Structure formats: structure tokens, C-alpha cells
């Protein structure tokens, strides 16, 4: 029964089963890549924490699959007939033989060399930070109106504004937020935007949210992408013909970029 479905490939003993070992390398490389991203905390930059266990589990599963393949490879090297007896129930190919594994392997190797970078302010400008006040989730996951205003993060502020957008309601409230600096070309020289990226699933869908900050000096003192802790209080101003809240900065402190640059 089994010999009927034997693969048509030549059973010559001298042929090295390169396809098998290329598969093994590609699978193991991907397992290593996923676990490496997890262990070196690079996964933080790529995925929402809720989905990280999936990547980790996939990494373990790939390593398991790779181990099984290695075992199978040695088995069939020892007793060549075993390979012939293994029917290939399924083999559709879009790529020429070996290309797909080679591509997977090559990308995994690039991935192992590559350190994902947190997105910078130019991505935020590209993705339109200026209209982010309307771009947040319609319903926040958690919403605490009673929270003290200086404990709100940028995301909390934006969510609060989404629920109750009247800027004057917040005038005089204390602000203490952390984020990175964006220099939108549309704002005057003594304003910048303090922003965070929000991630919902993976880096492909991060979007920036931010609040304008009014400075007493030109913004060039704080270059784009600098991480700052901004404390001050809320005022209402009209920027770009739109009445909106602005943080009147009192103290600006440079901080180091957090390990996980995204907010949720």
C-alpha cells in the first residue's frame, strides 16, 4: 500500500536530502527568531502584549517541529528505506522546489540580524498625529473620570477628551505626561506635540495620539523624538483655527525611552 504512494524522486542513495535539511534549517531558524525576539524583549516593539504568548508558543512549536524533522532526518539517513516508505500525501507547489524554504530561512536570518526600531516622529507625522484627537477608540477599555488629572497618561487625556471634548472644562488642571516630541510643521515655533503610539495588535496598526505643548522658548531646544516628562497645566488655545486644549509647560525633563514605547 505504502510503496504505491512513494515519491517519484530518484531513490539513489548518494543524493543528499537537501530539501529536508533546508526545511529543518528554516523551521528551526523561525523558532529561534520568535523566541529570540521574546527573550531580547524586541517582541515589545512588534506586538501587543496580549498576542505575545501566541508568538512564543509558535516559536516553541516550530522548534518542536524542527526537532522532530531532525530526528526523522537521522532516522531516514540510517535506514534509507524509511524515507521511501513515507508517502507524501500532499504536495502542491507554487515555488520551485527549495525556494520557499530558502526564502523562509533567508528572512529568518535577516530577522535575527535586524533590531526592530520604535517608530519615530516622522512616522507619527505621516500617520497624522494632528487629527489624532478624533482617532482614538470610540469606547475606551477602561475609563476613570475620578482619576487625578496629573495621573492621566496621554492616552487617558485623549480618551477623556473624546468623551467630553469641551476644552474649557479642563482649564487649570495639572498635567504630568510622558511621551516623545513631534514637531508638526503646522504649529508655531514655540509649540510641539508630546505623543505616544497606541498599539492594538501589531506594529502595522500603531497610531499616534498626542497633545500640543506650549513652550516659553523655541521648540528646537527639544529635538524631535526626544523622550520627555512634561508637567504643567491645561489651557485652551486656538491652533490651526481649532479651539483645543494645550499643555502650558512648566517643567520639562528628559527621560530615557521606555522599554515598551507603545501604550494600549
Amino acid at each position, binding site marked *: *500500500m505504502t510503496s*504505491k*504512494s512513494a515519491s*517519484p524522486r530518484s531513490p539513489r542513495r548518494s543524493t543528499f536530502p537537501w530539501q529536508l535539511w533546508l*526545511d529543518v534549517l*528554516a*523551521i528551526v531558524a*523561525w523558532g529561534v527568531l520568535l523566541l529570540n*525576539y521574546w527573550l531580547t524583549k524586541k*517582541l515589545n*516593539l*512588534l*506586538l*501587543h502584549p496580549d*498576542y505575545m504568548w*501566541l*508568538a512564543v*508558543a*509558535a516559536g516553541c*512549536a516550530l522548534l518542536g*517541529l524542527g526537532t*522532530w*524533522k531532525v530526528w526523522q532526518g537521522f532516522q531516514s539517513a540510517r535506514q534509507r528505506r524509511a524515507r521511501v516508505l*513515507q*508517502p*507524501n*500525501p*500532499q*504536495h*502542491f507547489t*507554487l*515555488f520551485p522546489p527549495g*525556494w*520557499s*524554504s530558502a*526564502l*523562509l530561512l533567508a*528572512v529568518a536570518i*535577516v530577522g535575527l540580524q535586524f533590531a*526592530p*526600531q520604535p*517608530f*519615530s516622529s*516622522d*512616522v507619527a507625522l*505621516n*500617520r*497624522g498625529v494632528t487629527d489624532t484627537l478624533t*482617532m*482614538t*477608540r*470610540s*469606547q475606551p477599555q477602561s475609563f476613570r473620570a475620578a482619576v487625578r488629572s496629573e495621573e492621566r497618561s496621554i492616552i487617558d487625556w485623549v480618551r477623556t477628551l473624546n468623551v467630553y471634548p469641551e476644552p474649557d472644562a479642563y482649564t487649570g488642571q495639572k498635567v504630568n505626561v510622558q511621551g516623545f516630541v513631534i514637531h508638526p510643521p503646522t504649529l508655531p515655533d514655540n509649540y510641539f506635540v508630546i505623543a505616544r503610539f497606541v498599539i*492594538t*495588535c*501589531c*506594529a*502595522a*496598526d500603531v*497610531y499616534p495620539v498626542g497633545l500640543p505643548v506650549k513652550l516659553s522658548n523655541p521648540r528646537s531646544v527639544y529635538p524631535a523624538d526626544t523622550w520627555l516628562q512634561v508637567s504643567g497645566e491645561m489651557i485652551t488655545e486656538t491652533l490651526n483655527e481649532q479651539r483645543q486644549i494645550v499643555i502650558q509647560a512648566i517643567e520639562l525633563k528628559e527621560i530615557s525611552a521606555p522599554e515598551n514605547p507603545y501604550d494600549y
Partner: protein
Amino acid sequence: MNQLNNALTLFFSLLVEAMPFVLIGVLFSSVLLLFVDERKLIAAAPKNPLAGALAGSLIGFLFPVCECGNVPVARRLLSQGAPSSMAIGFLLAAPTVNPVVFWATWTAFRDQPEMVFLRVGFSLLIATLIGWVFSVQADLRPLLQPAVARSMPTPARRSAQPAADLLQSGTFLIGSGQSLRLDTIDPQTATMAANPVLSKPFAVRLGLMFDNMVQELRELGGVLIIGSAIAAIVQVVVPREIVLSLGQGPITSILAMMVLGTVVSICSTVDSFFALSFASTFTSGALLAFLVFGPMIDLKNIGLLMTIFRGRAIVYLFVLAAQLTFLLTLLINLYVS
């Protein structure tokens, strides 16, 4: 340089996010191949093309796979002789009409439950209609990739010669109690349709299951890489602002979201969260279009579909799905919200 970095980060984030779902997909698909007799499933399918398409669309509830995973299952259904209406219905509906996606969409749009039901309802409707349309083509093989077409049983011949079961011309291999026809183009694929695997001991089947997983992983992984690369490049090169500025209008917003859904190629299991970030800038119809059309056809998915279909069939699927999605979501925009 910065652009390259961003593109690579996007690229790897898409891959890292999609890889587990691809694994789940090939796992389900391999289990289906080696432990479930699809012929029973297929035999149980209603003969009526419309009912068959609906049944196929609902199989997703048994196999919670996203669009990375439904293609191998659909491919297998076809190669096991499933009617075209059933296979197409499954192919289009399974990424959306399944418990995992239902739960994810519910989590995302808890405050708008109508989005969840409209998403599932529209996907079912569109998949069933397209499955029904494709059932007109009784023999799908001219539309399929040669490898898939070869592996399919030949319904036409069977029905044309009802008495030929006993006496058939061709090359046969005599086995224990049963002879096997060898005169298809590839003897390997002939055994696949007969699925001899189900009669093997469990340990052997488990081994074959892993073998099958590796093969599909290799194939789908290669395609996923190409799709993710295209998606990452387009996302970095085209400013999202341009896509978004297309608008608030009832028509342009739908078109923009359909284009975005096609380009972003995000997995259906998680795309509702992605859509949620546009919830306040885009019309509900546009969000629905993203949630319904994205899982059916996107850049990554087109690559995967090419492992089953020839280009012509993909164009038919694309055009039909796009038109139906557009019409239905436009109705929502104009008359409901």
C-alpha cells in the same frame, strides 16, 4: 535608511503576528487531512448548490482558521471532491464566520454589537452568493492550478460512464484486496484523493501529520513573506494620510477602507482591533467593508489563493466579492447609519 527600518519593523511585526496563526491553520488543515474523512463531510453536504454554499460557509465554525489557514483547508476540500459551491463558500466565509473571529470582533465592538452581527451576516451572504455563482461551473478544474486540478477526482467521467466501475481501462497497481488506478498524471496525487492515510495506525498518521504541516508551512510561509513584504512597502511608501483623506463620504470611505483592507493584509482574527482605531473617523459602512472584504481578499491572501486558483478565477472572486461588499455596506451607509 529610516524608511527601510520602518518597513522592516512593519514587515517583521506582520510576520511575527501571522506566524502563530499560520501554524494553527496548517495544524487544523493537517488534522483535517489525516484524522477526519472529508468525504463524509462532503457526502453530508446538501446537493443543492445554494444550500451547499451555505453549508460550506458555515464549516468555519468547525475549523476556526483565519485567512492564512483557510486556504489549505479549502484546497484540501477541493482535492477531496467537495462541490465547488461548498469549497468557495468555505474559502470566503471561514476567515470571518468562526468562533475565534466572532469573539475578537465582539471584544472590539462591544458597544456596537450590530457591527459583529452585520460582519458575520454580510460575510455569510457574500460567501454563499459567490459559492452559488461558482456552482454554475460544475467542473472547477479549468480555474484551478494544475497541481490542484490533477488531484481532484473526476466527477464528469464518473457520471458519464455509470457502468464502468467494474471495467475500466487504464493502468492499475494491484494491491491487497484493492487495485489502484495509476493513469492520472501524477501517481502521488492519485493516492491523495483516495486518502489511504485514514486506514493507517495512529503513530504513522501523526508522523504524516507533521510531515504535512512542514510542507504546508513551507509553502504558506513563503507566500506570507512575499505578501507581508508588499504590505510593509506600500504602508511605508504611501502616506496613510492620503488613504485616510479619501474620506468621510459614504462612497469614498468605503472604497478607501476596502483598499486599506486589501493593502494591510491583517489577519482576520485581529483585524477588528485594527478597524477599531478608525472607528471614529470612518463611517460604519466603511468599517464593515474593511471587516468583510479584508479577510476575503487581500494582498497576502491573493498570494495564498494562487496556490489554488489560476489568475482568472482570482479576478472573478475579487470582483464579485468587492462589488457585493460595496453594495451592502453602501446600503448601511445610506439607509441605516
